[in-house]
């Protein structure tokens, strides 16, 4: 395991000890198999106790794991053929947003996602998966193309958020996301989105207006990052854990709220532990969602999409409408 998370430390230490004992056995020829077996059993119990009941903050850390597959990893693994398409036709090609056409189980689909890097150099190139307005406009161009050729759209969300930079503001980060929301609401093809890692606020939602929202078991989706929430609430960005516990940002929370349609199960310990298993689970989830959506006519599909978002909200409605107080509003 190349990258360990803080809460995994006891397990990592135990595994190191097991490896040492195994090496010792080989080198010195002294039989330690009994001790190894005991420790392995202990490691298994420990792993279960760690991963069975992950806390929100631990999920956030798993969701950000540097070895978690990226959008292109999933797209290439899910599609037999994939052609990446570039550029927004206006300003430039944003490497933090990728997209193209692929054959998914023999069927052409448009696939779009925020793209994180694999290492520091790649991450700088990919701007750590934080897209600029031209990224959202590239995504929209590909969605409109999908609409033209009547192929479904799959979007992959894994971003801390839309990039908060000077150039991004100048070129209308807000407008670019706003445009995607209003266009995706009326896109005349099935749209399925998956939150694979981080679902960071408006930057995530800019790809997230869909007929069905899938979410990996340990992904998170939030209106604000736990650290920023902590900075605002308690003037202390180090209290991310407390904010994560408070804000109901896990896949399980969002499923309970009726916002996420399906949780995609992760291999034990997270998708980074077994990519093939993760890809297979995600492929199945996409295929099942598509089956449900294919059964609907276009009008029914758009009606369903409208209702999905229309009903999201938590408020109290007083049974008796108050007298319409137009007079009261005329205060001087």
């Amino acid at each position, binding site marked *: 395991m190349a990258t360990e998370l803080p809460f995994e430390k006891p397990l990592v230490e135990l595994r190191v000890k097991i490896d040492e004992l195994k090496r010792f056995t080989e080198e010195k020829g002294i039989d330690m198999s009994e001790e190894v077996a005991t420790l392995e059993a202990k490691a298994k119990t420990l792993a279960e106790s760690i991963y069975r009941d992950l806390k929100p903050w631990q999920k956030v850390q798993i969701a950000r794991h540097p070895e978690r597959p990226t959008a292109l990893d999933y797209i290439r693994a899910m599609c037999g053929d994939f052609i990446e398409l570039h550029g927004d036709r206006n300003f430039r090609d944003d490497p933090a947003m990728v997209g193209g056409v692929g054959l998914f189980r023999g069927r052409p689909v448009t696939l779009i996602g925020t793209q994180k890097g694999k290492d520091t150099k790649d991450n700088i190139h990919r701007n750590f998966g934080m897209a600029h307005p031209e990224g959202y406009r590239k995504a929209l161009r590909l969605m409109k193309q999908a609409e033209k050729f009547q192929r479904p759209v799959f979007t992959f969300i894994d971003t801390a958020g*839309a*990039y*908060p*930079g*000077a150039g991004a*503001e*100048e*070129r*209308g*980060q*807000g*407008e670019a*996301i*706003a*445009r995607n*929301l*209003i*266009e995706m*609401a*009326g896109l005349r093809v099935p749209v399925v989105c998956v939150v694979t890692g981080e679902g960071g*606020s*408006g930057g995530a*939602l800019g790809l*997230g*207006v869909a007929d069905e929202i899938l979410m990996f078991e340990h992904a998170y*989706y*939030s*209106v*604000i990052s736990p650290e920023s*929430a902590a900075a*605002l*609430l308690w003037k202390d960005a180090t209290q991310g854990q407390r904010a994560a516990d*408070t*804000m*109901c*940002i896990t896949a399980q*929370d*969002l499923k309970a*709220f009726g*916002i996420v349609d399906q949780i995609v199960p992760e291999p034990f310990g997270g998708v980074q532990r077994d990519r093939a298993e993760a890809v297979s689970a995600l492929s199945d989830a996409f295929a099942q969602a598509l089956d449900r959506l294919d059964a609907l006519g276009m009008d029914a599909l758009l009606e369903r*999409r*409208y209702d999905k*978002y*229309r009903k*999201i*909200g*938590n*408020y*109290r*409605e*007083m049974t*008796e*409408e*108050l007298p*319409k*107080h*137009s007079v009261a*509003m*005329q*205060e001087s």
Partner: protein
Amino acid sequence: MLKDLFPKKRKFATISPNQGAKDRVPEGLMNKCKRCGEILLSRELEKNVKTCPHCGYHFSMTAPERIDATLDEGSFVEFDAHLLTGDPLSFPDYPEKVQKAREMSGLDEAIVSGYGTIAGFPLYIAVMDFRFIMGSMGSVVGERLARTVERATDDGVPVVIFTVSGGARMQEGIFSLMQMAKVSAALRRHADAGRLYIAVCTNPTTGGVTASFAMQGDLNLAEPGAMIGFAGRRIIESTIRQQLPEEFQTAEFLLEHGMLDEVVHRKDMKPYLATVLAMHSKRGEPNGHRTAF
């Protein structure tokens, strides 16, 4: 007489080290312009729809004030006042915060919505209010907006939204974020029905509101000097590690960068909207009757 007043006041202000003179100005009678520092009589300020007659600075406006200044007198009918704030995440201290905002603002949420006329032209209108938890968008704001837009679509009339917002209502978490999609979906239908939507950004309009309905108008307008942006100034400065120019994210900056159709002075807003409404109605007349404005 007014002219005589200002030099006197200035003298008091400079002589007194503890600004005692200023404190003795009866509450609500005088206002100091936040930009040019001129002392303005409240009456004078009201006459100028809360803009400074010297430098043009736009003071913040409450939703009721905005409705008064924008719609024909007595035409406003409020809708959806019976929707009240929930607490979906059982967020610590949220109900208390809402209660405080209610008492402080006299409103029950960060938006007032309803129906009215401008120069006789019918429209649905929604106006945000910054005093209520920084005009943040929670479920009630989203629901009132969605219902307002839906009514406008059903009745075949335009909708105008005045924005002022710190962005999403953090205490409502993902519900707050999803209101952006909900309102956008309603505006999509309004657009598909061939109906007009005008967004007017006032100071400040940020975050999730900028990234949704504030930027989805057939016309995107703003008041002079309004700060409009997706990310906050401090966040950008800490990201790029340099200071941003003064005019960054102002309405004029956005106009220059192609994000707005026009920057309209508050005194001109009502006739401007009336002209736009006329241009989008049959024969340029409200209900077949020509009305002067």
